[in-house]
């Protein structure tokens, strides 16, 4: 009886089910956001709490006592908004408040804001101790694009993105992709 009902319902909803299945194929899944660091940073994984402490400027040094340089996109940038909510589990306006308080009251130093994702990648490549974030899709694109200063993108801890490729360029630039643990 129950199965009969289910079958009838499925038949009725058949066009919808098919449409949804097709939609799944067509609409790309929400891309993941990866956390990247300068190639010399030895910490290859961070807990969620550590990542949050780093971005709220409560942890200023890596485990080898080198200073952390934090880079972010502007507050209204979509990727930044997603990074704050998904990776840090904090609302972007809360981050802003913490950083504003540090910057404009003399208490400390806030992250450096860069204009675009590309600038962010460049900053992380060039700045020792740097941490930033990157769209999964962009990470894959790096493989194909000709970044003048990018010689190699080495991805650690992420088998799915184990890209190791030499590209044209005069200087060596490397980023690490950091694994975020619960």
């Amino acid at each position, binding site marked *: 009886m129950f199965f009969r009902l289910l079958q009838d319902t499925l038949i009725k909803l058949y066009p919808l089910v098919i449409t949804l299945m097709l939609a799944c194929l067509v609409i790309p899944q929400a891309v993941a956001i990866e956390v990247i660091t300068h190639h010399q940073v030895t910490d290859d994984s961070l807990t969620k709490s550590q990542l949050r402490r780093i971005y709220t400027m*409560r942890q200023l040094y890596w485990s080898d006592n080198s200073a952390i340089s934090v880079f972010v996109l502007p507050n209204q940038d979509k990727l930044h908004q997603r990074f704050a909510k998904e990776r840090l589990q904090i609302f972007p306006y809360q981050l802003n408040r913490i950083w504003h308080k540090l910057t404009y009251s*003399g*208490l400390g130093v806030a992250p*450096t804001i860069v204009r675009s994702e590309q600038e962010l990648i*460049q900053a992380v490549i060039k*700045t020792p101790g740097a941490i930033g974030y990157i769209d999964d899709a962009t990470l894959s694109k790096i493989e194909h694009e000709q970044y003048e200063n990018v010689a190699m993108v080495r991805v650690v801890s992420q088998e799915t993105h184990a890209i190791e490729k030499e590209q044209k360029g005069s200087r060596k630039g490397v980023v690490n992709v950091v694994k975020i643990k619960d």
Partner: protein
Amino acid sequence: MLSKLKTNAAVDVSSRVNNLLSFIGCFARPKTIVIVLAALSGSIAQAKEPNIFSTSQDFQLHGFISQGLIDVNGSDFVNDDGELSAELTEIGLNASYQLTSKFRLAGQVVYLDGGNRYAQGARVDYALIDWSAITTENWQANIYLGRFKNNHWLYSSSRDIPFARPSIILPQSVYFDGFRDIAVGSDGIASKISYSTDDYGNFDWQISYGTSPISDEQTTNILSDYAQGDAEQDYDAQTSLYWQPAFSSWRFGISLLDAGFTYDSAGVSNGDFFFDSDFTFQFYTLNALYEGETWEFSGEVYQQRFTMDGFYHPTFELDNIGQGFYLQSRYKITQQLTLLARYEDFYLDKEDKDGKKLEQSTGGQVPYYFGFHKDVTLGLNYDFTSNFALRAEYHWVRGAGRLTPVVAPNPGINDSEDWQMWAVQLMYWF
């Protein structure tokens, strides 16, 4: 110009130095805000050289510029004639330079024009050396020497940063503009100890000791034109503790303040109405903050004790306990638009909440409504970009307990119990 302002700031050093030059220009001619804005946005637009991030990490330059209109009806909060006023200008520039891994220099200058609210002009907001004494994964301890900002109350460190505070005019019972220069910070020593754990959340403990210089204009604002002598702050000791449970939307805080002042009279022969005196001020607050995705609630409850010895008469004594609170709510309609509603209630003497005793004791010269201050505020904030916003608000105020001059009230201008004000402010920061 809007489109130029929307050009987001490149963070390279050269543009920041350009901005610095623009701001130096603006301090020389503080009224020429439009020119400065144009220069500022122009210099940002010019910045196309490659970024040098390692340098920008050690040296950082930030600032803000804001201009508004404010109209007060029924009090001398901003001006004496009650006309629409452009005396709502706030400009600031700060720099931070990392000397070594343990030491950092930081300073900020601000230019303020708020009419009667505080002295017009530029001042050094903070200028300090920051020693990072302890930096581990869970602990941070910093010692600040020099002029530091008051970081003890919910909005004390952001009270003069237009976009970082919740409204154009803050709850005056706590963030009284008449006391701004004294309360905003001190010259002395401060420390901040932070402990962050996965289990219990974040703890921030702060302690500070110092004094604030009191300018002649500030003396006039607080003590009236009839005070010809010198007012001095002898000490200001404060401490506060904040706790945010792990991954919680809530944060709770407590703060304590103890301060002492003296007044050296210029003498009756020099036209000074007042006598040598000592003042003490103690202030205790409890606060809570909730930050949700769309809703936000915050509030502070406080008690103050104010004592006077002398001043009106060599043997005059006063010991008042005042109390108050405010509750504030913000609602984010969209990513850009936020609404604000706030209620504030404060009385200067808990034994005289309706001010009747005040009126009797002064023989009717100071009306009862100088004994309290209540304010209902509605406002909105619109973020055009990540660093350009517009704010507007309306205040319905009952009482004259937070108007200057404090010790010699002016019931001539402030002749009504109820008064209102509205304000709009455009702000840009980088």
